[in-house]
């Protein structure tokens, strides 16, 4: 058996990229021909002269974005095998939700993807509405979409700041970009606080609509804030666009094969940076996305630089969508059902199930709910499964880390944007 040789530091070829059709999807040719490294490399069969060094990265490490633990086997400075260990934040959310009624689940699932709580609430309540057959009124749909897009901007800002801090001084001087990104993120959190009363964990979506209506003058204020953030975005790009160190550290680092990405189930910006044009907001519109035109930014390179570019373009796109919707919020009620006072008020017919997927900042966030089979406990879900996008991004790490240097692995893991609360649940 020939020994797998670690891939050298590769850069994508410059110039136009050829495309091939695979399974009805148009993907870049050069990424397809790149062989995948073996994630289950047998270390006993590896070159006996090599001095392999295991490095334990995490679970407490500032650049693991939480409590991820990865065991890295390094040959010199190049990684040959990476084994992620999960479960350091396993809180049994899915099991907990089986004990709670449909009205009580929303604040629990807020804590899954703790960088974008609005998305968790939206996904879970859309699944419950599908189970019940309730359609929220148009005002609630538009408010949900505005919240989702503003949350996407806030989430990407946090990602940019922490990723820049992980890569150290190369990306705009250590903590500088982190401080700038948090300055803008606070503005969005202030807007949310004005509506819901909480900076975090809003609990504003309910089954059949929203709990809080927009206060007077909020739309104009939100448009002003979004304009301000859009004017700040070139400032961040000035840090990075012409920065040679940044380009060297991200261009060609962590090249993701679109076929591998589709096989593992990666979605969101990481998939779009590999040339696959897929976005649930445009392909399967939910909430009020059928009212606006969604342009999906796509890059072909598939490396960390492309993921950064996709996220920056997505921020601009989200600001545009939110602004367009804010200019014309329809009047009317914000809930289709009466406000729920009792937890047992919502009852679902027996033997039903529903799956709903939305486009969260990290990819497709899905919720699968099965209703109870007995009338007596019809207010409780029988089974609730959450399909987190970060979990699939974490499955990529054993494929992307071999062949990269230790410093590159920090950049690669950061560019996938994993949230460990969502991975372990």
């Amino acid at each position, binding site marked *: 058996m020939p020994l797998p040789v670690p891939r050298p530091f590769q850069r994508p070829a410059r110039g136009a990229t050829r495309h091939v059709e695979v399974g009805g999807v148009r993907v870049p040719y050069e990424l397809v021909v790149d062989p995948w490294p073996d994630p289950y490399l047998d270390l006993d069969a590896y070159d006996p002269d090599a001095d392999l060094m295991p490095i334990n990265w995490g679970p407490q490490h*500032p650049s693991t974005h939480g*409590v991820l633990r990865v065991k890295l086997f390094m040959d010199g400075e190049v990684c040959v095998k990476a084994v992620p260990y999960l*479960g350091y*934040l*396993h809180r049994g959310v899915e099991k907990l939700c089986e004990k709670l009624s449909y009205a009580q689940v929303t604040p629990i699932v807020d804590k899954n993807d703790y960088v974008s709580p609005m998305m968790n609430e939206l996904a879970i309540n859309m699944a419950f509405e599908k189970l019940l057959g309730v359609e929220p009124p148009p005002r609630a749909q538009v408010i949900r979409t505005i919240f989702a897009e503003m949350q996407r901007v806030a989430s990407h800002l*946090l990602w940019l700041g922490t990723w820049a801090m992980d890569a150290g001084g190369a990306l705009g001087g250590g903590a500088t970009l982190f401080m700038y990104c*948090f300055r803008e993120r*606070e503005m969005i959190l202030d807007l949310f606080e004005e509506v819901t009363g909480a*900076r975090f964990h809003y609990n504003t979506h309910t089954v059949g609509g929203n709990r809080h209506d927009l206060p007077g003058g909020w739309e104009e204020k939100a448009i002003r804030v979004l304009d301000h953030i859009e004017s700040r975005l070139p400032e961040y790009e000035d840090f990075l666009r012409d920065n040679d160190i940044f380009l060297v550290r991200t261009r060609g680092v962590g090249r993701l094969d679109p076929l591998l990405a589709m096989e593992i189930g990666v979605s969101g910006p990481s998939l779009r940076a590999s040339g696959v044009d897929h976005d649930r907001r445009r392909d399967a519109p939910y909430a009020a996305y059928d009212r606006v035109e969604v342009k999906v930014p796509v890059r072909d390179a598939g490396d960390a630089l492309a993921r950064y570019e996709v996220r920056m373009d997505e921020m601009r796109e989200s600001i545009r969508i939110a602004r367009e919707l804010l200019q014309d919020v329809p009047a009317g009620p914000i809930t289709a059902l009466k406000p729920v006072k009792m937890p047992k008020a919502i009852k679902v017919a027996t033997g039903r199930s529903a799956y709903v997927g939305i486009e969260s900042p990290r990819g497709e966030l899905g919720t699968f709910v099965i209703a109870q089979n007995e009338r007596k406990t019809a207010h409780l879900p029988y089974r609730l499964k959450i399909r987190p996008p970060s979990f699939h991004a974490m499955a990529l790490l054993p494929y992307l880390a071999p062949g990269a240097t230790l410093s590159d692995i920090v950049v690669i893991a950061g560019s996938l944007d994993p949230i460990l609360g969502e991975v372990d649940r």
Partner: protein
Amino acid sequence: MAVNESGQRFHHAVYEKFEAVANFPGLDLLFTTADKVLTWGSQNSLWAFPMATSCCGIEFMATAASRFDTERIGTFTRGTPRQCDVMVVAGTITVKMAPRVRKLWDMMPEPKWCIAMGSCAISGDFYRDIYSVVPGVDTFIPVDVYVPGCPPNPDALLLGFKRLQEKIQARREGRWVEPDKRPIDGMRVPSIPRIGAPDRLPVFDQAQLHNVLHMDPDGRMLRPDAPPMPRPPEEDPE
């Protein structure tokens, strides 16, 4: 080495090193002054170690970032336990994570303090009945200040740091400081008593130390060749 009211071992570096000299008559004045300077320094430059596991970690980052800025009160965030004075436990601590938290706490040099940030770190919150969650971080490390909230606002965390500074100053002056209580009333008491509680058996501390010493680097809790874990004595069936 002394044990204070909340069960925390209280250790003063200057006094320990020069215990014989400090008892020499006439030198008290010098060491009192040094003690004063050291306390002033440590309370105004609390280096915080973020034991950030989940949502509260994001709010801790917001507190350390541009708008709230903990460096105004001298609290600087550092990613390593060996250089820090305060451990801020921000987020849910699971059974798998708890030995690591204990190990990081043991790595920190004395004098050290702990802030439990958020309801998960205080009591486990609504996850406290889940099989994998530790019901409160004070079941295995001593906590000085509790900051309630889910997650606490940055203002609340800043207030927690100020409260810790007051406690450090009061301890130097020899004033009585009421030990902080869990800010949740009517909550179920955890099955393992808190550190410092009179009914807590020493075997719990031994078991935690055993976990840390014989942890398997491959991800399981204990190494296969580890000696048997100390168990609490079995009660008489009568």
